[in-house]
């Protein structure tokens, strides 16, 4: 298993795209965190450290990580290297486990780096814009997230991106699907549901990213949001795994 991880580590970091996307992720995280702090009150109110550290769970940041997540399988299928990988490691469950573990490690490291950037910005922020006490606000809406929630939400988002890539064998779909779902399609569904006057409410209640964000931002009217989001993540991952084991390389 160690050699699987070494293989994936070398595969991940030997491509410049990983470095570039990680850098862009940090820049976007920094800009999103710094904007409200440095551009005056703007109606945001006083931020807290906890609220500031919720910033990198925003979809605009996560889409950068999802690019790298999609590349875990996307590059393998696009360039045919999956056949090299599976010749070297015939046990597919180990290949999948290694990729999943390394994706987790990558998200964790990136999130910590993002917090480091946000921490540096926080120390430079104007005095009145950042408070140690109080509830603060979350860029993603609702209450500030717990730190472990930021990591877990980021990992879940990337896991969906990787799973979509595995299912479709298309790198772009793995990036675009979660982005469009979370930022446009789910919003449109909610609009249609309002117009349908209650007939589509059940759909709204099970939307993956709406529930994920509700869980992340502690929306109290959706107590099962975390479970519903987790079910979606596990569902995508299980389907992708089954296809990965069953299909030809």
């Amino acid at each position, binding site marked *: 298993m160690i050699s699987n991880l070494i293989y994936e580590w*070398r595969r991940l970091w030997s*491509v410049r795209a990983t470095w570039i996307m990680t850098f862009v992720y940090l820049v976007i995280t920094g800009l999103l965190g710094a904007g409200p702090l440095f551009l005056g009150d703007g109606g945001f109110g006083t931020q807290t450290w906890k609220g500031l550290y919720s910033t990198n769970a925003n979809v605009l940041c996560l889409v950068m990580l999802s690019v790298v997540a999609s590349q875990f399988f996307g590059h393998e299928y696009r360039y045919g290297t999956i*056949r090299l990988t599976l010749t070297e490691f015939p046990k597919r469950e180990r290949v999948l486990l290694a990729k999943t573990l390394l994706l987790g490690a990558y998200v964790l490291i990136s999130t910590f780096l993002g917090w480091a950037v946000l921490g540096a910005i926080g120390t430079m922020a104007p005095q009145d814009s950042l408070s140690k006490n109080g509830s603060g606000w979350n860029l993603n809406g609702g209450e500030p997230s717990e730190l472990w929630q930021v990591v877990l939400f980021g990992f879940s988002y990337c896991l969906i991106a990787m799973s979509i890539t595995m299912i479709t064998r298309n790198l772009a779909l793995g990036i675009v699907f979660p982005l469009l779902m979370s930022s446009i399609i789910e919003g449109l569904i909610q609009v249609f549901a309002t117009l349908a006057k209650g007939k589509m409410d059940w759909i709204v209640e099970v939307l993956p990213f709406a529930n994920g964000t509700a869980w992340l931002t502690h929306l109290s009217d959706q107590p099962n949001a975390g479970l519903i989001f987790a079910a979606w993540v596990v569902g995508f991952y299980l389907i992708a795994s089954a296809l990965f084991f*069953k299909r030809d*390389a």
Partner: protein
Amino acid sequence: MRIEARNLDKHFRKIHAVDDLSFTVEPGRVTGFLGPNGSGKSTTMRLMLGLDNGGGETLFDGQKLNSHLPVTRTIGAHLDAKFFHPKRSAYAHLRMLGAEAGISKARVHEVLKLVGLESVAKKRPGGFSLGMGQRLGLAGAILADPQVLMLDEPANGLDPQSIQWLRDFLKYYASNGRSVLVSSHLLSEMELLADDLVVIARGKLIAAESMPAFLSRATGSAVVVRSSQSEKLSEILNAQGIASTSDGANTLVIPRQTTDRIGEIAFTNGIALSELSPRTASLEQVFLELTDSGQEYRIGQTS
């Protein structure tokens, strides 16, 4: 290491790509894998490596591939000249492939030098020619010095010098007791390279035997005899039920016979021979004879 492919079978919906295929690849020999386009050679190789799901099994010294660890010390495969990330350097590509067997940086440099890519080791292979891609693929296959090499069309895109180098290398590799299975469309090249042949058409086995045995299948193989007494010899052969045809002055062509047999008859009857030689068909002739009806994608006839 002996490879046994047993009852390999693969369907793509209604197409039977590989049909109950069984053969062995012996250690210490280069085994050529031949078949027309679309005959199932690449699919067979993928089945052998467990990359495609299908029927049958492939055993390496009696065991499945994943029971030989590290796998890359057992088998090195090169299936396509473009199986690399175009922006991952050749060196980084090989470092990645060397993870399972714990290959050192020095070995990576050694292999890059061996295949002639040392000067472009740090360059992105996206701009590599087909021949350079083949070399990189071959470098990946031999990186861990495996017991078995499995190469799919490795000579495509190589210049004549590189083809000769590849031939010498594979012969040397097999001479150390290792097994080499190599597919190729270059029949003249295969004739010089392979000790044994596995020939398939439409996914079915046509032949699995040594090169000489395969060539002797040709209807065109014959013995050529030149003698001032060729007419007398023809009569003697005819009396023994052996047909012969005249091929110019004092020359006979005797199909489906051996030089030993004809020489013995001539000696017994006191006929002096000035030439006694076999006329064997080329690999291309035999291949075309045996696979003509099994061609999946047939080209049109020119008028």
